[in-house]
């Protein structure tokens, strides 16, 4: 089809298209702006000339807040970083403090952490991909995905007592051992996850609208991804083959056989597909972990300096009472020093840099939130595209306000 402009006779002046650049505010309260974030767009027609992305609306002073409680009181805050996959944050922070304390969680606890973490990752990727599809008009996959996500949450609730913000990690282990039917529950939900993955793909991957909207839009070249410090699915979609689970294994990830999916173009389609494939890989990891996980044994270190003793001990013996008292009133006391510890969060490398002065209160907790680095690259992905392309691009970057603004 010919462009409409060529049909117009300009001399007659019958129709004039006003093409001065226009400034448009998108957000901070906009249904497609995940979290609260503002974009100031310079538009020429529908093309984005420039964009100023302004995060910070969800700043709660996470890092400063950590400096006034005990180390274990940081876990509820860590939950609220990436609240779509709180279990991964819990474990990430626990691993950092354990590195400082030179603690090694028992094997069963490590497998337990892996399984809960991978379930959280599946939730996170599902939510991201489902929401992206929904915002492009495909509501059905979103509802199917949320149905399965709820079933995963049922398991997490059964284990931790909370559906969303679990606060389940502890320095030196987990708050509780796995429930009796944990393994069967997880196996059951894996079937459903597989099913809905296939269903979603059937709905979307041959859908012309979906293909047009995602393929070739929001491109992030590999070089720029490296320069921006982008990690996680966004970086892998751009062809950067990096996954902390494989490249610097923590917990028991070195015992699993899994692939790290890598894209080529770095467009919205690649990011969607990387996440879909990572869900499959997470299922593989969980299946292997369920296979290898010891059937009995502790999930937390057996050291009353770190873990609260059993309640019946606390009520009956003075030693356990003192331990409880010391842990509650003064907190776990890591040796003075500082460490950086990183894990693969749902959005990329989730790092904790922590400093201890030897007291029961963190001296400094610094988070490396993957979203923050991914969001930096978002500007380049958007410029040059149409306004409507912002929606899938921003959706697939999966910026989480809680983590980004902290």
């Amino acid at each position, binding site marked *: 089809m010919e462009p409409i402009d060529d049909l117009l006779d300009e001399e007659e002046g019958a129709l004039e298209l006003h093409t001065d650049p226009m400034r448009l505010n998108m957000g901070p309260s906009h249904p497609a702006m995940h979290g609260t974030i503002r974009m100031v767009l310079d538009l020429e027609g529908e093309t984005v000339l420039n964009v100023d992305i302004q995060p910070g609306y969800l700043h709660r002073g996470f890092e400063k807040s950590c400096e006034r409680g005990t180390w274990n009181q940081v876990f509820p805050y860590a939950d609220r970083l990436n609240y779509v996959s709180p279990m991964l944050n819990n474990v990430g922070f626990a691993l950092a403090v354990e590195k400082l304390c030179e603690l090694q969680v028992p094997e069963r606890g490590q497998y337990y952490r892996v399984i809960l973490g991978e379930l959280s990752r599946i939730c996170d990727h599902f939510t991201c991909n489902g929401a992206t599809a929904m915002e492009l008009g495909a509501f059905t996959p979103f509802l199917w995905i949320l149905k399965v996500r709820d079933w995963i949450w049922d398991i997490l609730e059964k284990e931790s007592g909370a559906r969303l913000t679990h606060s389940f990690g502890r320095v030196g282990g987990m708050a509780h051992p796995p429930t009796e039917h944990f393994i069967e529950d997880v196996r059951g939900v894996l079937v459903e996850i597989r099913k809905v993955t296939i269903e979603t793909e059937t709905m979307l991957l041959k859908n012309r609208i979906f293909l047009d909207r995602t393929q070739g839009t929001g491109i992030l070249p590999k070089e720029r991804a490296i320069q921006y410090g982008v990690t996680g699915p966004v970086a892998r979609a751009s062809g950067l083959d990096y996954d902390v689970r494989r490249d610097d294994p923590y917990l028991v990830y070195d015992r699993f056989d899994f692939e790290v999916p890598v894209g080529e173009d770095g467009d919205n389609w690649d990011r969607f597909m990387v996440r879909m494939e990572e869900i499959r890989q997470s299922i593989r990891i969980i299946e292997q972990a369920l296979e290898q996980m010891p059937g009995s044994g502790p999930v937390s270190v057996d050291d*009353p300096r770190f873990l609260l003793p059993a309640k019946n001990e606390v009520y*009956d013996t003075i*030693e356990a*009472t*003192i*331990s409880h008292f*010391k842990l509650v009133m003064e907190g776990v006391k890591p040796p003075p020093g500082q460490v950086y510890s990183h894990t693969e969060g749902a959005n990329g490398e989730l790092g904790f840099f922590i400093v201890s002065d030897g007291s029961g209160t963190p001296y400094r907790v610094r988070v490396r939130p993957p979203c923050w680095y991914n969001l930096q690259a978002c500007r380049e992905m958007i410029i040059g595209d149409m306004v409507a392309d912002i929606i899938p691009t921003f959706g697939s970057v999966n910026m989480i306000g809680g983590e980004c603004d902290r």
Partner: protein
Amino acid sequence: MEHSPEETKITIDGKPVPFEPGDTIIRAAWRQGIEIPHYCWHPGLSVAANCRMCLVHIKSGRQMEMPILKWNAKKKAFLPETKPKLQPACQIEAQAGMEIDTAGPDVANARASVQEFLLLNHPVDCPICDQAGECKLQDYWLDHQTSLKRKRTEPVHKPKGVRFGPTIVYDAERCIMCTRCIRVCEELVGDPVLDMRERGNRNEIVLAPGRQLDHRYTLMTEHVCPVGALTSRDFRFKARVWFLKASPTVCPGCATGCNAHADHDPRYGKVYRLRPRDNPQVNQHWMCDDGMMTYISAHEGRMYGGLIGRGDEREGCSPTESIRQAAARFSAVESSRIAVVLSALRSSEDNFAAVRFAETLGTSKLYVNARPDWVGDDILRSADQNPNRAGVTHAAGREIDRNLNDLMRDVAAKEIEAVLLLGSASTEFAQQLSALGELEAIVNLASNESAFTTVASVVIPTVSWLEDFGTFRNRDGLDQQFRRAVPAPPGVQPAWKAIATLAAEMGRELGFSNIKGLRALLNESTSSVSAQSSDSAAAAGATV
């Protein structure tokens, strides 16, 4: 005999530690701020060496090996072996060149075992124990034991909540028999009212027959108690110590000026107890019972605002309004007929401001209000019950020998028309002071209700000693500064500031606007006694 520096040093875990002749290992370490864990040793008491927590391995000199039986897992039998004999650091005198190991596995093992024995029959009392949070059993469990209970039989039960006297309650189950309290009574007070009876796990501290724990230093038994066995009836169940913050202060109870910590809860702005602060120049490690209780008077009958008028016509007003009213009344009388009553209970700063006030008014009618003498002793208590009599002399530049009796005589002789009363007077003066009720301009600067506030026509509220920065000069001429522990009620000023404002209202200038300027003036106007601050001396004292 002269010693070269190398000869007067011992080595603790590779670190050279100097010592003075006669020092034990633990005292030499204590002087350097190195803590060797201990329960029964106290720097101010004799050595008992009964808790065995301070056992160390002396690696130099002749080694003593103890025969033991050690479990051999391979042969599944106890086999004879030896281990080094450990010695109590509190009892062994430091010798030049001694090498001491306090961190090796033998020492750690010994400490863990001692700690386990001490907790063997200990009741599960932390949640209801006042010592929790500052208890050595808790601290050392975390530092040196960190294991859970192995004994599964019923603990030995002993008397709980035994009333030892008007101030102290004893719990035998919590007691670890360190005998610190016995030694305080015997060595500090010279009244051996406490002793120990029975043996082993039936041990308990008892009173001498027919006696109560009722000497003047009973609270020191609680102060030295490393666990929660002795508790102060005053402090019992009032606060949890981890909510309390300590501020350095000086006891206002008598002319000795014992150094103390004022433990206060910042949430409520309230002081809950005083605790002795080590100062080798003044009070070593101790305070008397009356001194420990002085904090109560600062909270009793607190003046939160000004008062105008007397009796039924008395009305409350803001602090600023009370100063304005006082200025108006003073301005109405001839300034040479105004008397100024200093206070031996208030800081040198407050008294100096009052003296300057009298000087600018041109009146020479200075009097001093002081508490009558009480029973002193040769331990700490001075017969002079006033913390700052020397400070008043210092502030006035001369001895002021006119007291309240002289004031009342001069009032009766119609020589005085107006009086500025600084601080408080005890209620027994009420009758004697009633003639002041006839005068129109009786101004009292008070933090608490007293006989002065009853007779005053204007009361200007001031901060109390716990809410103020100031100086007391003790009986030895030592200027000791105390710091604010809790905030003053809103709008309430220190007395020296209120006097300066009062003078300004009357169109006069005292020559200072802040405490720094005041102190500079105070020290240049009277340099008869060389002032020395005790702050540095206090910092030298280590924790026990």
